[in-house]
Structure formats: C-alpha cells, structure tokens
C-alpha cells in the first residue's frame, strides 16, 4: 500500500456506455479510487452507478473510455479476470447460484482463485469465525434469508484478500443488524488498504461509512465531496436534482372518495420471494376516484407488493380485499373478473408480445369476462381498436402484426386501450411512462387522470418521483418492504422525500 497517498489504485477515465437499445447509461465519467478509502457512489435509479461498477468488474464493455488499475490500462474479458486480478464485487441481488449449497458456491468461486475445495472452505470458515458470522454451509442458498446470503457473498469475496471491493446497494435487502456486521467488515478492510467502492441510494450511509462521496445523476458525476462534511439535505438535493413540487393540494376527486369505502384494501401484507421477505406488513387503501401513488427506490418491495395484489405471487400473510371481497387466495383471473386491471411495469408483460393488436385487445376483454358468446365478434373488436387507435394516437402499420414490433410508446397506448375498453374499477399500474418520450408520457398521464375522474381506483407504483407527485392524490413511500409514509403530495418537502426514499427518516 506504498502508493496509497497519491496514486489512485483504480481509476476510470471518460467512460461512456450506450446500451444496444440506445439508453445512455454513462456519459463521460471519470473517477479515482484510492487504496484504504471508502468511496461512496450515490444516486437514484438509472444514475449509472451499477453500470460503472459492472464495467470495472469486466461484466460489460464500455462504449468508450478506459479503466486504469494499478497504473495500467485494463480491459477484462469477464469478471473471472477481474477476480483473479484482485477485484471483487458484491451485487445487490447477489451472484450466488441459488440452487447450490453455500459450500458449493464457495468451492466454485474458490476454484477461480486457484483454491481447492478444502482450502476454500477452510478459508471461508476462518473468515466466518473472524467476523462472527454463523453460516450454514450445507444449506441451499435459495432457502436462506438475504442477510445470510450476503454474509456468504462477503466471505466468498474475501476468500483471498482483494485489492478492490465493489459493493452494489449492499444494504437494500438486509436488516439493520446485518448492516452493522457489514460495516464492521468494510472498516476492517479499509484498515488493510483495500479500495472500496460503495454504491448506494441511502443518504444516511454516506456519512457513516464513506470517506468520499460522488453523487451521480443521469450518467454524469454531479459532485464529489468529503463524505463526513456533506449533510443529508445537501446530498438529497444533489441526488434528486431540481424539480418542482405541486403547490396546490389536489381536490379533484377527493370529495367523492370520502363517501364510499375502499375499492382495494391491503392489510398487513407480507410477501416472501426466494426466501426473502420482500414485503413486510404493508397496509393501504385505494378509494374509488383516487390515485394512490407508491414510490421508492427500485427493489424496496414494490414489485412484490404489486404482484401479490394482482395474484401472481403468493401471499405469506395478511389480507387483500377487492371491492369488498377477500381475494387473498384467488388467482389473477378471478380478480380480473371482479373488476381489477393490471398494467405491469415490464412492457413484455403488459401485452402478449407475439400476438397482434386485435388479439391483445380481445384478450383484455376476455380477461375482464366481457367476451360473451361462443364466437368472438372480431368486427366489433376491430371497431373498438380503431376507436382507441384514433383516440390515443397509436401509430401502427397493421393490426395483424405482432405488437413486439411496435415502439414502447405505442405498446403502452395499446395496453391502456385494453384497460380502457373494459372499464375496470381498480387499476394497478407500474411505471406507466418508463422509457417513453415526453409527448407519450403526457398522453398516458392524461389517460390516468381521466380514469380517476371516472371513478376508478388507481394504485400507481412508480419510481419516477415527478410522475407520482404530479398525479397522485396521496403518496406512499416504500423502503425496505414497508410503507414509511403516506401523505398528500404537497405535504412533502423534497428533502423529506429524499430522506424517506433513502431510509433516513
């Protein structure tokens, strides 16, 4: 660690990454990482933090720019080369082979470092003991809670001491106790001169674990500051950027909402996915004529909450009531028959990609139980389609071509058409404008507002803060599987939202 004073152990210069779909994830990023320093990368979703880490780790190639490691320009062909060179990464969603036992995972990883199975397991046991981790080596990884999985990841990454350790959102899925243990490990490694790249969206962690902090937004570096001196409010503002909060309270449908009961009620819902409790006791209500926005940094349980509400994921505890009926154990199609509609966040799931626009519209009608009679009246479906195509301005060459060939915006309009056509009473919509251009975003927003004014109850789950604040009557913030706050949009301040999303409230 002789050179740790001045020369960076690892540096990136002018990194640009454009994904094949045209997304610019990194737009000229240059950063230095020193030995014996914890460098925090802070940013919202899509800021480019993870892309940066994956490039350093050799998982993806940059479009341009370079990575300099130990004074030399490097281009790893894959993570295994980075691992051999002394760079380790701990992923947000862990890179363990879920179907393997802990021991098998460690043995396979160890073999990449030239360790025999026995050596790798001995090293792992020693490390576990050193850090006071209790690890069940013979258990299947997918059966273990996230906290233990993370300990396995840590032990695995440290089998042979690394020179650089990258941690991607390491605390997003684990309990506070696990976080304490993790921080002890990180501090220990810093003492030993390891360069640590710590990726997070959690503001509070910056001061606790970081030496320096770099804030990223939309593929660019916004600022690099000494971590101890940065305040939470300052960081929140840098991370979220400048936006306007709605000034007036929304009155549109609130009056009507109060009179009737909730259209959708979720009580103390718990959802366990792959051994991990992703939703930890969520309760909420959506009333007719109301949009309840749910926001938070991606991966805080929103996906699981939604998929449980619509009946795709099984529920571990709690109750879901749809229009007065307990549907906790009912399959999705039964909930649809009762008046639910679902607009998934992934475009691939909001329409059947291999089928055409007409068929997708008919599927919407079928799902809602509105396709009566032994034969489908395709002429009627076509008329409906034409109506919505004109109303929403869908651009398509033919109603008989698979919708996968359509642009994201046109697909989303069609997905909304299939929902409009059946007039559901409850809509669950996830990231409805993700990846869309401004004009289409406006159309989608006006459709949602229109649906609300017609008395629909809408649960809008989105990680786009502007969208949620602009559209919702009430906004709930999710963090670590819980709803940490529900208020009207104008009652929040930016700093407060940033803190809540960052789990620092």
């Amino acid at each position, binding site marked *: 660690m002789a050179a740790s004073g001045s020369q960076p152990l690892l540096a990136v210069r002018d990194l640009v990454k454009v994904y094949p779909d045209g997304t610019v994830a990194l737009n000229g990023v240059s950063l230095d990482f020193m030995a014996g320093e914890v460098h925090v990368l802070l940013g919202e979703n899509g800021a480019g933090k993870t892309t940066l880490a994956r490039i350093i780790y050799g998982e993806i190639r940059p479009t341009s720019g370079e990575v300099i490691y130990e004074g030399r320009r490097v281009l790893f062909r894959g993570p295994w080369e980075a691992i051999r060179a002394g760079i380790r990464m701990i992923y947000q969603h862990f890179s363990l082979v879920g179907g393997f036992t802990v021991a098998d995972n460690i043995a396979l990883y160890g073999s990449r470092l030239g360790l025999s199975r026995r050596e790798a397991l001995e090293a792992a046991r020693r490390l576990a003991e050193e850090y006071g981790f209790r690890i069940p080596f013979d258990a299947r990884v997918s059966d273990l809670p996230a906290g233990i999985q993370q300990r396995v990841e840590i032990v695995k990454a440290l089998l042979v001491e690394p020179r650089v350790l990258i941690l991607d959102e390491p605390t997003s899925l684990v309990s506070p106790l696990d976080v304490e243990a993790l921080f002890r490990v990180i501090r220990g490694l810093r003492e030993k001169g390891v360069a640590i790249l710590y990726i997070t969206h959690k503001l509070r962690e910056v001061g606790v674990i970081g030496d320096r902090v770099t804030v990223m937004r939309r593929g660019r570096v916004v600022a690099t500051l000494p971590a101890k001196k940065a305040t939470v409010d300052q960081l929140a503002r840098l991370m979220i950027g400048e936006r306007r909060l709605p000034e007036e309270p929304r009155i549109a449908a609130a009056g009507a909402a109060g009179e009737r009961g909730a259209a959708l009620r979720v009580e103390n819902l718990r959802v366990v996915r792959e051994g991990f409790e992703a939703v930890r006791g969520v309760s909420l209500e959506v009333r007719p004529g109301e949009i309840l926005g749910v926001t938070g940094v991606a991966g805080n349980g929103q996906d699981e909450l939604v998929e449980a509400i619509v009946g795709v994921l099984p529920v571990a505890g709690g109750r879901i009531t749809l229009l007065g009926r307990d549907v906790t154990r009912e399959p999705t199609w039964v909930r649809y028959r009762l008046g639910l509609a679902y607009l998934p966040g992934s475009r691939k799931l909001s*329409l*059947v990609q291999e*089928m055409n626009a007409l068929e997708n519209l008919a599927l*919407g009608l079928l799902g809602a139980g509105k396709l009566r009679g032994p034969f*489908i009246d395709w002429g009627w479906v076509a008329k409906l389609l034409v109506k919505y195509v004109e109303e929403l301005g869908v651009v398509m060459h033919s109603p008989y071509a698979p919708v996968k060939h359509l642009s994201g915006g046109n697909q989303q309009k069609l997905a909304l058409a299939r929902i409009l056509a059946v007039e559901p009473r409850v809509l669950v919509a996830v990231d409805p404008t993700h990846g869309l251009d401004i004009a289409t975003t406006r159309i989608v927003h006006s459709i949602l507002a229109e649906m609300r004014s017609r008395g629909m109850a809408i649960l809008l789950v989105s990680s786009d803060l502007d969208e949620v604040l602009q559209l919702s009557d009430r906004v709930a913030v999710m963090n670590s599987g819980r709803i940490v706050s529900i208020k009207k949009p104008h009652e929040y301040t930016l700093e407060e939202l940033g803190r809540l999303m960052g789990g620092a409230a």
Partner: protein
Amino acid sequence: MKPVVEKLIGSLIGLAAALAAMALAFSLLGYNPAEAFRLLGEGIVENYDIMLLRVAPLILTSLAFAVPAFAGLFNIGGEGQAYVGALAALAVSYIAPNPVLCLLVGALAGGLLGYLAGVLRVKRGVHEVVSTIMLNWIAFYTVRYIVVNYFKNPYYPDTTNPVPPPGRLGQVAGVPVVVFIAIAACILCYLVLYRMPLGLAIRSTGAGYEAARRLGIDVEKAMILSMLLGGVFGGLAGAVIVIGETYNLDVALSSVYGVGFDGIGAALLAWNNPLAIPFSSLLLSALVAGGYQLQIGMGIDIHVLSIFTGVVVFVLGLPSLYELLKPKLQALRLAKARRRGGGA
C-alpha cells in the same frame, strides 16, 4: 409468429433435408435412390386409395399435437390416445353399430387420456412429455390385452371381430367419408383457435404465459382444455381407422401403430396451422402410399419412412437459417449505421 414465407421456407428446407436423408439411407442400404424414388412416386399414383385412407387419421393426430402446442405443451400422446380411441370405437360398434356414436365415444376416450396428462401437468407438475409417453405404453398393452382376450375373431385369430356393417363409414364419390370428418375437424379446430374465446386463451398461454396470466387469462384452464381437445382428436384418429378404414384391429395394433408420431411430423411441417395440416398430412400419407410400392418392389419395410418424418421433425426443431443469421445481420446493420453516423 413468423411470417408465412419464412415458415414455408423452413418447411421446404425440412422436406429437402428429409429427402436427402432418404436418398442417403437408400444408397447406404445398397438400393438405387433414383429407382426407389421412382417406385415411391409410382406408389402414390397406384395406391392413391391408401393415401386417402391414411390421410384422415394422420390429420387428426396432427391436430392432437398442434392444439396443445398452441398452449405451449407437447402432446406426444397422440399415439396412445389413438389406441384407446380405436378400441372404444370398436367396442361401441359391437353394442350399438352407429358410426357417429362410435366416433364420439372414441373421441371421448382419447380426450380423457389427454385430460389426465393436462391435469397432471397443471396440478402436479408432471411434464406432459413423460406422462403421455407412459400413457402411450399403458394404452398399448391394455388395448392389446383386450383385443387379444375379448375381441378376437375366431376365424382369423390375428384380428378382432369386424365392425358390424351398419357401424362402418364407406366412401362418397371415391373419397372415404372419414377424410371429410378429418377436414371438418381441421376447420373446427381453426374456428376454436381463432374465432372462439377458448382458442384465444389457449394461444395466448403458449405465446406468452407470463403476460397472459397478468392479463387475467385462466392459463391453467387453457392448458388443461388444450390437452383435452388434443386428446379428443387423437382418440378420433383411432376411431376413424376402425370405423372408416380397417373395420377391425389386429393383435399387433399395426394399423394404428406409429400414426401418433407421424402426426407430430405433419403438424410441425404445417407449423401447427390447422388449415395447413391437411396438406402436410396428405404429403406424409402419400409417402406411406408410395411406401407400400417400395415394400413390394424392393422389399424395403414401410416403417423405414420414419427416417423421413424424423428428419423433418429434427430440422424443424432447429432454428431457421434466418434466425441463425439474424444477430449477424443486425450487427452488420448497426456497424453500417455507426459508420455512417461517424462520417457525418
């Protein structure tokens, strides 16, 4: 789904590969391939009646494979469904020699077998390929047991008592009635798949299971019903053989044996399209008709033709040439675009 032209090219490649494989097989076995193909062609002309008789069950076993395939399932049980369909039709004909009733009961028997496999898949996670093959063998031995022990013809011990004449279906204008039934089944299938809600549900389940269930489609019901429907057509295939073609079964079930697997070939050749299936089935049954000539003229057993079907299936399981080239084409296009962009 791919465009029609691409599918047609895929099928033609499959056929060409199968013909080449046959030629290779003939020459390896020491026959003159040209002579063999001449005999095959001759046989198609000479035995066009056999061709017409074989096409009906073949169409039906193709449907047996195709309908579940639309739901993303592989019904390899057309064979077993045909065995039980044949037996059920035969049994009914002894009691009530009415062809319609015989066909209905045969279809029902096959349908039950398909339904069983569908339920096992959806409720118990038993893969349909394994369950339908097990059911094929169980059906084969059980049917043979009943044929040998209960239905044996005292005068011709290798066969069963024949279907009483009132239970038989004959010909209309030189075309077996069962051919019309099979074609009607294709049209029915088309209507179910493309005009009825059930078909929409079935097709969406196969085209995008995860999306379909999020659109409120009862995908489990679609899967089970697709297997039931496939089984119905498989059972009907066996029934038309007994009621419209052979009027009996032999103790080796040789008139039914293999028809389920040939149906898979015909279905894949037609890309599971129920309106294309009559043509692909006609092609394969023509091959069978020609095969008899081959058997007589050169002593080559008819089952050798499975080589043809097998290669057709294998080649259609491979990604098409276009799909293999697609990433390369895309890369090329991207590179070109980038060059143009860089130059500007």
